[in-house]
């Protein structure tokens, strides 16, 4: 049995989730504090766009930026000797784009419900803004943020459309659970396909179960 696609999927999802965690928190924190409701709604829409766009659209746009013949791809090659196509970091980056809205939405909701009075009191007590964010706001919103993180992880784990476009399917190099499943099926290997199907259902189910537990715990706390 070749376990590489699972391990590759996990490392892609992990790197993607780390990127999305910080980017999502930062964006949600900034947007929540904007005073203009119209601007907030516009940014909410913009930052959630990749959730509803067909993943190949994101894959195509990604290739237009990082493809070897395009500007960012060219620079990367010139200055770092690196490329961001047909490898797992490219898959992680594009998965991050796809799963970002899940993290953003969940954190944004949690931050919007957060009592700004706690921040105000912490300020009058002399605590710096960064300290307040990491020690008060984030712990109070931890369940919403954790739920968003798990969802983003699950989404990255199952990403197919954009990943297939930027990383393709190279056995033992860029194969993921989804692309391996597609390859097994198109090659007539039904047993192989079924194996990846069962594994995907188990992994996704476990993630959703974790989200459910987190959300119920939050409701009980309120």
């Amino acid at each position, binding site marked *: 049995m070749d376990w590489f696609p699972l391990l590759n999927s996990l490392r892609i999802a992990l790197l993607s989730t780390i990127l999305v965690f910080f980017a999502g928190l930062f964006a949600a924190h900034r947007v929540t504090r904007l005073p203009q409701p119209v601007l907030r709604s516009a940014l909410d829409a913009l930052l959630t766009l990749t959730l509803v766009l067909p993943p190949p659209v994101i894959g195509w746009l990604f290739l237009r930026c990082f493809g070897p013949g395009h500007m960012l791809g060219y620079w990367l090659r010139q200055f770092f000797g690196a490329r961001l196509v047909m490898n797992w970091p490219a898959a992680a980056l594009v998965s991050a784009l796809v799963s970002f809205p899940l993290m953003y939405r969940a954190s944004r909701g949690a931050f919007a419900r957060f009592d700004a*009075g706690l921040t*105000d009191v*912490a*300020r*009058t007590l*002399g605590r710096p803004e960064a300290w307040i964010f990491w020690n008060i706001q984030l712990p*109070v919103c931890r369940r919403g943020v954790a739920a968003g993180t798990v969802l983003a992880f699950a989404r990255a784990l199952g990403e197919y459309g954009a990943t297939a476009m930027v990383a393709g399917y190279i056995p033992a190099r860029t194969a993921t659970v989804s692309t391996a499943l597609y390859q097994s099926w198109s090659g007539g290997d039904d047993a192989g396909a079924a194996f990846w199907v069962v594994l995907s259902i188990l992994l996704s189910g476990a993630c959703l179960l974790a989200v459910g537990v987190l959300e119920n715990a939050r409701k009980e706390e309120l």
Partner: protein
Amino acid sequence: MKLRVDIIKTVGSLRLDAQLEAGEGTLALLGATGSGKTAILRCIAGLSDPDEGRIMIDGEPLFDSYRHVSLPPQKRKIGLLTPGYALFPHLTVQGNIAAAVDAKPDRERVSVDALRRFRLVDAADKKPRQLSELERQRTALARLWASHPSAVLLDEPLSVIDSFLKFGLEQELSDFVRGFDGPVIWASHDRGEVYRNCPSVCVLENGVTQEVISAERLLSHPGTEGAARLSGCKNIIGAIPRHNAIFIPEWGVTLRSAYPIPPFLTRVGIRAHQVRITEPALVNTFSVTVERVIEDVSSTIVLLRPNGASVDAPLLRMELDRNTWRTTPDQRNLTVSIGPQDILLLR
């Protein structure tokens, strides 16, 4: 130490214009809900900026729009107690207190000291939602104390508390305020709370502060209609000065005052419990008809129509001891009097 505030700010449809000075003794900021108390306190604490003006503590500017000074709240050392206390829900009592201590090495020592001082030793490891109302207030005060503020602002500290708990909480709050060495501003809409705890009062009406007066004077000479209402005066009616007396057109009644009548007089206030049933022919007597009787918890409220009153004139509200009312022989037609010293002369 003195806290001086002289600021202007527009908040929504409300125009704040606040001038006050708090030094020795607690200063009450007495105003109705929505009169701008919280907005003023937030400006002092640095949580929002006034449009214009100055906020000084001990001659040092916290905010000065003319010299472009606006210290962040972290640097102002102004303690703020908000309704509901805003305790950090995920931290223990001790954690909440420690969060107020700047220097890491002092955290343990100061928070243990605060736990002892505010009688919270047994609750040290509890989370805020496991605490009683009294312990929650103690935690908020301990946290405030641990941050070493140079001034303290109390924003309607007792407004969200059930009334049967209020008395005990108010006493502890009062002890804290008395023991605090620095200016204290106690914002409230409750005249009783103010009278019991604050020697001086600044009345706030629609965002505009009146001059600071003593709590005694607020009751005897509130000065403006808004201050009279906030001080609990139930009867306020239009009046005009006439021949060294006061004429109330709507009631067709002329009253004498024990004090000189200011030329700007437009209204008078009469406290419900200072309306007395009396014999005719004394000073300031007039005859009235009883319109309605309401039994209150510990007194009787009687609504009276002066016999010379116009049809749509407001009724005179009288409040008296239940026994006195029960033993009044004629409960339909009365003669009442108002002491010349009890008439509040208002602008």
